[in-house]
């Protein structure tokens, strides 16, 4: 149970509640018994299908009933149905599950059933199959955007979005996905799910040469800098910044970004993320770009002083800073 407030009820209130529930409970139990009996005896009729709809409406987490429903469709219904009608049935399944998702956006079994529907569009109808798939998958992308509008961090929806993009005919372009993540980030800089998605999309765009990595990285540093200035206490953009820096292969970028953060740190002296990032990036400099002993000593000193400051302003992670100080 997540986020349901605890209310202390009197014995009378509990008894009244149970009485009210009694009829509902009896109905649920007899429906469950009926459906499970039919399941056991391989009843693959329309009537059984309708009963699974009722039961799943009462309890969309009852995954064995979703399983049974799929068996009814493939064993009992589809064999005597035209390809077009099969596609229509699957579309109806998709709208049914959409209504369930609105009230249960995090139930794995509902998301699963959608995948199953999309994967069971009749495959042997040539052009018609392609048209159906195109239409169904585009609708799906729209549906998942609605889900992400309602909760921009729902990881079921993000995973599903990636799955839809990978599966739809005429592959969805990474460039379009980059725009989508920009939109999500601009509406809320704190949306780490969108920043994460951006790391995946940009990696792919750089790898395929669709985007020039150096120029694109500079734009990303600009974007994340805005986010850092809007709220330097939000982790999301700092973690993204760390992805952009990576192992710190580019000395110029590393030094430039250290300077950017030092400026921010002057304005926000108590912001632990500034200090923590500075320490991490200076350690990267230390590992790869110390050209003489004086520089080395200066960097170690700088890191030590950052770490000791971090120990006092971020005491929960004190032991981590102590360990990092063992050069």
């Amino acid at each position, binding site marked *: 149970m997540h986020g349901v407030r605890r209310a202390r009820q009197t014995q009378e209130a509990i008894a009244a509640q149970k009485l009210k529930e009694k009829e509902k409970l009896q109905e649920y139990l007899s429906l469950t018994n009926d459906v499970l009996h039919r399941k056991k005896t391989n009843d693959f009729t329309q009537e059984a299908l309708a009963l699974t709809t009722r039961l799943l409406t009462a309890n969309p987490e009852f995954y064995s009933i979703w399983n049974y429903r799929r068996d009814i469709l493939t064993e009992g219904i589809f064999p005597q149905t035209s390809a077009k009608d099969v596609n229509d049935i699957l579309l109806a399944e998709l709208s049914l599950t959409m209504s369930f998702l609105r009230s249960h956006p995090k139930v794995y079994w509902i998301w699963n059933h959608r995948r199953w529907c999309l994967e069971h569009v009749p495959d042997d109808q040539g052009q018609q199959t392609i048209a159906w798939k195109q239409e169904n998958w585009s609708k799906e992308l729209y549906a998942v955007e609605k889900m992400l509008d309602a909760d921009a961090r729902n990881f079921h929806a993000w995973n599903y979005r990636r799955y839809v993009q990978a599966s739809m005919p005429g592959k969805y372009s990474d460039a379009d996905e980059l725009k989508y993540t920009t939109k999500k980030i601009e509406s809320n800089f704190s949306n*780490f799910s969108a920043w994460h998605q951006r*790391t995946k999309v940009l990696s792919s765009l750089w790898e395929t040469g669709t985007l020039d990595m150096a120029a694109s990285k500079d734009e990303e540093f600009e974007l994340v800098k805005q986010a850092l200035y809007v709220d330097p206490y939000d982790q999301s953009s700092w973690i993204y910044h760390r992805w952009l820096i990576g192992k710190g292969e580019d000395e110029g970028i590393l030094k430039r970004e250290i300077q950017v953060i030092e400026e921010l740190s002057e304005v926000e002296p108590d912001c632990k993320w500034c200090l923590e990032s500075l320490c991490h990036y200076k350690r990267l400099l230390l590992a790869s770009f110390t050209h003489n002993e004086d520089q080395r000593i200066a960097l170690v000193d700088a890191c030590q002083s950052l770490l000791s400051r971090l120990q006092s302003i971020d005491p929960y*992670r*004190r032991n981590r800073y102590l360990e990092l100080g063992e050069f």
Partner: protein
Amino acid sequence: MTSELLIPLHVKYIQSLDNHKDDLAYHLTTHLRINGIYWGLTSLCIMGHQDALPREEMIDFVMSCWDEKAGAFGPHPDHDAHLLSTLSAIQILATQKALDRIDVKRVTDFLLSLQTASGVFAGDRFGETDTRFTYCAVNALSLLGQLGKLEGDRKERAIEHIKQCRNFDGGFGSSVGAESHAGQIFVCVAALAILDRLEEVDVPTLAWWLSERQLPNGGLNGRPEKLEDVCYSFWVLSAMAILDKVTWIDAEKLTSFILSAQDTEGGGIADRPGDMVDVFHTHFGVAGLSLLGYPGLEDLDPVYCMPAKLIEEMGLRKQWTALERRKLP
């Protein structure tokens, strides 16, 4: 606000869970029944009250969840077999020292049949895949003494898939491309631990990310900029224990947070203070406290999420470090 773990109250709460047959909510959660029993039993073991639930009745119930067609366990009689319920069944039987009741050959075949070409496991015959299911299969095979069957190419593919789910932040997601999430990190790190392949983990980066899950109120969240929740006490801490980094968060603050989520009248632990309790959060709260060295508790093995003594007796213990158990005042 209370500063200690109310063990007798939680034991009573867990014992009472099966007395709600006239509640609709009880019947709406049958798909989680066997998992619920595993959570209840394991937390009782950690609180030193393994015998608070009747052993024979529990074993009989588990056996009544056997799905003859699939050759594995469902969560409740007449429900379909799934990896999630099969692992819980095996964990319960192992804890009750009743693994001899299992048809090991059939269950092993079921587990192995669910590995897909990419290496990840499906949850059942309908093919949903998730790194959670790889952990379930690896853990179950190990408890059954059948891990040797996941050999050569099978083992390498399972590991390769987990590696592909690793992100730049050191964490792991549920599938390739998915965002890091503390729950998925537990399953991936623990699976790698069982498979003796922890070198695939980027320890400094992951331990950094995990330590940043602790919020000012002491609780842990599961992803950046999300709310704290008692269950992450286990997901985050288990991975930290396996990486020997539990000290990277403030144990005292987390302990207080977990304790503050107790229902001091009815027993049980909630996701956060003031919310409704359930056996899932009770278990993961107690599990977290055990790893934090809370006095009077038994050790929990963070890899298998079972009593550590039992895992040791079975010869399955992997390397991990929890905080030293504090003495009762």
